[in-house]
């Protein structure tokens, strides 16, 4: 895994102090592993001369770092007030029905993870749904089957 180390060092050079690079470094590690297993924290810590505990404490503060394995695809639904007013809850329920899981879970085949998030900054176009980190807006319950179908196709699953 020495490449990850090199990538991290390259990013770290853009900062005056190495430890400032911890968030971009964690991102690189997450891209590599899909989530942040203990090993990832050890590697990031070694590359930046920090402790794994420190790196994990930073990562655990932020929603966009995954401390548990996630599916091949992620569906994130904003449930903050603007989206809630235009029916985010119903969109969420539609995803839950269609995927057969609750928010915070991953489908048994590992294809899709579903979760709610705080404001994504698209308040004028709610309900906002981020599919693999790209926004779809607005997403209404009737749009959900097509999105899920699309995701299922690209993982080759059922």
């Amino acid at each position, binding site marked *: 895994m020495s490449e990850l180390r090199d990538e991290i060092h390259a990013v770290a050079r853009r900062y005056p102090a190495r430890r400032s690079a911890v968030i971009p470094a964690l991102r690189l590690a997450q891209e590599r592993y899909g989530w942040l297993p203990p090993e990832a924290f050890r590697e990031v810590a070694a590359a930046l001369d920090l402790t794994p505990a420190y790196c994990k404490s930073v990562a655990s*503060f932020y929603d966009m770092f995954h401390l548990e394995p996630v599916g091949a695809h992620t569906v994130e639904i904003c449930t903050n007030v603007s989206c809630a007013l235009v029916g985010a809850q119903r969109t969420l329920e539609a995803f839950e029905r269609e995927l057969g899981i609750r928010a915070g879970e991953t489908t048994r085949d590992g294809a899709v993870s579903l979760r709610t998030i705080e404001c994504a900054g698209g308040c004028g176009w709610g309900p906002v749904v981020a599919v693999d980190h790209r926004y779809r807006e607005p997403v209404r319950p009737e749009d959900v089957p097509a999105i899920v179908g699309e995701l299922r196709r690209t993982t080759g699953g059922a």
Partner: protein
Amino acid sequence: MSAPPEQVTITIDDRSVSVPKGTGLVESALQAGIEIPVFCYEPRLGPPLGACRMCLVEIEGLPKLQAACTLSAQDGMVVRTSATSAQAADGQEGVLEFILLNHPLDCPDCDKGGECPLQDLTLRYGPGTSRMVVQKRTFDKPIPISPLIALDRERCILCYRCTRFSEQVAEDGQLVALNRGASSIIATFEDEPYRAHFSGNVIDLCPVGALTSTVYRFRARPWEIQNVPTVCAMCPVGCNVWATTREGKVARVLARNHPEVDGGWLCDKGRFAHDHLRAADRLTEPIRRIRMRGLVAVPWEEALDAADEGLRAAGASVCVAFSGGETVEQADALSRLVRQGLGADVALLPDDPDPALDAFRAPLAAIRSANVCLVVGDEPVLERAPIVDLWLRAARRGGAEVVTVGPAGAIAAPPGSAAAICAALAASSPPEELRELARDLREADRVALVWSGDDDTGGRHLAGLAAALELGEGSGAYFLPRTPNGRGVAQAWRAAGDGRGIDPSGDEALGALIVSGDEALRDTRVVALADRARFVLTTAMFMNEAAGQSHVILPGTGYLERDGTVVNLEGRSQRLRRTVEPPGWDELAFFAQLARRFGVDVDPWTRAGVDELAALPARSGTAPVVAAPAARGPQRAAGAGGDFELVRYRALFSGAAVERVPQLAFQRPAAEVELPGGDASRLHIATGERVVLRSGEVSRELAARVNRRLAPGVARVAEEHADGLADSVRIEKA
């Protein structure tokens, strides 16, 4: 000299108080005799955090209640605490109700009960009842975060004192907060043990019963204990401590802040090793080797007769081996017995620091305000005098340039080159790689010089450098002795006669050997001497240490059982107090009696001498002139093949006392060898792999650990894992 700080006047609860500008509100109130309650506030942990809001006060002109701990006194400020402000009282009550929402209130079986700030402040400022009717949040509890510390997450109030200590004081980065907001928890990485030299301080810091000591838990209740002020004598720092005793036994050791020495921190050795007093092999009676019967317990009088007889038969052919843990009074009694009573003049001193440094004496706390700190020597400061490491870290955080020069230094230098480095830095034209450092040292207002290695001449070389730099007040030079009171022992020995202690070389038979203390028994030179001695008189705490070659063994005392004086590395005389009774006579009583039989009058009691918070004596002596030692090249070529120069260090968590405390086992040095990054990759050795170290006939298998700070060609091993190896070794994969 800077001008005295400007004074400002503020009014707190209608009392007016004048304080230097910049003084915190909590301290200002204290000066007016007013308490502002706090949980998270602890100035020793760095800038205030404002996490708990316990310190809410009303400030005239500000619309909302303010966290007093985050503010400093401004001229004309009008402050009202809960004593005179209904709004502040209401606010504090609300804060406490909030803090207690999920708190289990299991005070009856909480180890903190009775000495818990949360309990006390709830009683004084809290609401008395709770409106919380739903189930409280629960966690598994207690969970061990190390064999020494238990964590109860239900009780944690998220003040972040513990994590700030770990991150900003010890800088070990191991104890952290995970998650965010209400989900935050205190944790180590993947439940690995919190393994760091200063971990126990988080127990002292925790204002609730969330972090408790596994060694102390449930041993005593606050109303059945006595705290006795004494000094830790496990290393040459001499941290000030309270020994908590219950029913004549030491139950725990707590910090007793001496702001110039320890700043209120303790290392885990000083804090947790006290149970060696109750080791299974603790000697409680004198023992005598009797022909055909082996080692037999005998009455004290008989031991005295046997010692008398053995020493008398030896004539003047007597050597005494000190351990460096004796009090000055014990060392004085023994020295006078040997020098004046027996007419002998030979001693093995574990330390004999050069007094030249007394001309540059300064409190340890001066390190924190230095602009440039230099550390030379082969041994890690952390292992030799741990608190000094904390002062150096504080200096670096404060903006000082902290430079280590040595086998693991920022500037690489071969083992044993500290004297040459000092000379080179003192010279008018230092070599290229030291030039910048030499310039910074010369230009700095305040400098701290530290020698961390086993060479007794170190003090002289350091003093030579200090003199060349013309260090004045505010700067200091520190030699770190090997043993807790090595300095005081050497002084006592020298004062007892005019000859100097000579190394007993040669191999002729010795009439008698006196071994003073368990640590001396482990000195390989002492073991060799004992082979040559016809009579060996030993004082020791532990049977397994003493049994080997001794003819008469006296049960020794631990530092927590002694009254007397110890001299720390600064040269400060501090008072040890007897916190609990030793099992029998102490060494001073015995040697005073023995000395009397040889016509020497020794006082068996320690005279009241030094204060509770002992001051540092004034600087004395003048700087010496030192001959520059022959310089070794500062950089050695990497070991050809697998040849390395071996640096060994004495780990803090080692020695007879530590080995007898099972909870400290995980802190002892791992069986590993540190290798420099370049050499390791050249030899294709990675961290964790097994390697074999060979020198001559001796070989040792250890785990490798790559340390990128190590100079090329240098391998480092803790002394206890380097047994029998020579200074140069060949290392290859196992």
